[in-house]
């Protein structure tokens, strides 16, 4: 993450007619990371992605890819981007191979063996010369990946790549994405409305809801947070106790809420904290634990639309 960002989104807004769909999103993506763009249906994931690849005009703000502005220098900016936006719609009356030939003609300097290489990477060798209309959804997704990878992009954008796939298909796609990210060292920006899926796939996750980016966190942090509980201590004197805890446990998230001291700690540590508080002469008149896992937090944010 010390590297220069490959994508910079600055205060991105989109207005269609009178309604604002995206309300000022700012985000940086770094080389080699798999970034999850998580949000319920209608949150604005596809709209954001459409602006990133120049399919939709930006109302306000700016997007830079590899240092080039998408609005002002589209061809340069998009040169190192591959993507699937919503469904991988390809020409059904052409063979998979002809589809790839088609896209390869739109990129300068592409070698024919590169096509064969990619076909092998996504495991479509056997059926590549058949018409796309005979393909299953999973095969179409893989062909979609192939067209996105043809020109060795630095950034791969995938909009809900597992939509409509069965669990086996989902696992398959996940394997490919991981493999690609590791082998080709490219940044993957993948959107989804499924938290569980994102956790397995991504290094970092940004949560979007109603066109706003609510939080961006590393999956590692999220997983740690997930074991934590907010524990409310009814303690006297309150402010002195707060100060004491802050000094003794600087890494513990602590705050004052009403008449209570609230600590985000792991369940198994509750005894220890209680002991320390009592042993240092504070008066404890009640403990109340509030379950607040990650998933519940999402559900609260998104009003229950987010599938876990």
């Amino acid at each position, binding site marked *: 993450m010390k590297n220069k960002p490959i994508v910079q989104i600055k205060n991105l807004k989109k207005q*269609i007619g009178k309604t604002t769909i995206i309300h000022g999103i700012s985000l940086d993506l770094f080389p080699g990371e798999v970034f999850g763009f998580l949000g319920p249906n209608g949150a604005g994931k596809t709209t954001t992605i*459409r602006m990133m*690849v*120049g*399919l*939709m*005009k930006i109302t306000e703000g700016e997007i830079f890819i590899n240092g080039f502005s998408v609005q002002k220098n*589209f*061809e*340069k900016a*998009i*040169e190192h*981007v591959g*993507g*699937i*936006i*919503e*469904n*991988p*719609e*390809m*020409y*059904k*009356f*052409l063979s998979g191979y*002809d589809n790839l*030939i*088609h*896209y390869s*003609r*739109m*990129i*300068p300097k592409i070698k024919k063996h590169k096509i064969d290489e990619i076909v092998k990477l996504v495991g479509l060798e056997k059926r590549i010369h058949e018409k796309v209309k005979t393909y299953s959804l999973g095969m179409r997704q893989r062909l979609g990946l192939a*067209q996105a990878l043809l020109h060795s992009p630095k950034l791969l954008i995938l909009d809900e790549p597992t939509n409509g796939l069965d669990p086996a298909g989902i696992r398959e796609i996940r394997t490919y994405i991981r493999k690609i990210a590791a082998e080709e060292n490219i940044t993957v920006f993948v959107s989804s409305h499924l938290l569980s899926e994102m956790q397995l796939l991504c290094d970092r996750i940004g949560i979007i809801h109603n066109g706003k980016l609510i939080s961006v966190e590393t999956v590692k942090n999220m997983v740690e947070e997930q074991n934590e509980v907010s524990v409310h201590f009814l303690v006297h004197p309150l402010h002195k106790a707060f100060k004491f805890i802050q000094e003794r446990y600087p890494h513990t998230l602590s705050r004052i809420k009403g008449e209570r001291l609230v600590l985000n700690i792991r369940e198994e540590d509750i005894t220890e904290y209680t002991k320390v508080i009592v042993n240092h002469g504070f008066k404890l008149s009640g403990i109340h634990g509030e379950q607040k896992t990650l998933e519940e937090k999402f559900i609260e944010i998104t009003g229950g639309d987010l599938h876990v």
Partner: protein
Amino acid sequence: MYNMIRLIQNENMKIYKRLGTWVMVGLIIFVVIISGLVDKFLLSSNMEGTWQEELQYQSMELEKQINEYESMPMVGNAIKPLKEQLVINEYRIENNVPPVENETIWGFMSSLSDITSFAAVFVIVIGAGIVATEFTTGTIKLLLIRPVNRAKILLSKYIATIIFAIFMLIIMFAGSFVVGSILYGFDRLDLPYLVYSGGEVIERNMITHILSLYGLNSVDMIMMVTFAFMISTVFRNSSLAIGLSLFLMFTGQQMVMLLSEYQWVKYILFANTNLVQYISGTPLVDGMTMTFSITVLIAYFICFVFTSWIIFERRDVAA
């Protein structure tokens, strides 16, 4: 440039790898053959006398008609072509130049040039679909996220449509030549084409005449295809583009005819698409010239192309 050729290759691949395209080609060939058979076996005038007698009879009829018209008000331009035909008929008899209209390969080929409008239907179908179907099938998204600007993509699509138009015309021309030569042989290949110009009859080369007929008839086709292309780009709906273009193509001339007493009618597209009116016939509205029509056509053409381009360039793709 190299870039552009590859884009056109792509569009061609999408046109010619479709079964529907070849069905259209098959239909064109079928229609050419059927017209040949009808021309030869159903329409052939069972001439009793020589062509001279036939022409004299036709001239008599023409004179009768001219007299009738002259006693009627509001006939206007209708008399002029009849009179010219009369002069040409006299020239034929005096100089021993039989008409080509029936029973020759030339007659067949020039009569078939009228059915370029049939080929136009197919070209309009292709032109109306080439942008719109990318939107309806959603393939537009993957097409536009490439390092190629939208104007080039649109241009490649337009060029591919025009190439298809030329392909269809060649098939018609070659097809009618083959069918004509099988049915009528190569007799009387040297017959000239007669035109009435500036008060006298002039002999012209037949093959250039037929080629120019095809050329002039395809002006209509090009304009309507460009129109369909524009509608399809603006509304992203190929059925609408096909329907509207065909409706206008087949009724436009009639509408102009109905309104021909007004001067402004000459600025309507359809008053100008039929350029054949300037070589074999009389203009719809007095005072219209070939130059005038070509200027109007170019103005419409620029308007259609410009509209398509602006809309395509600015469009938010939310398909």
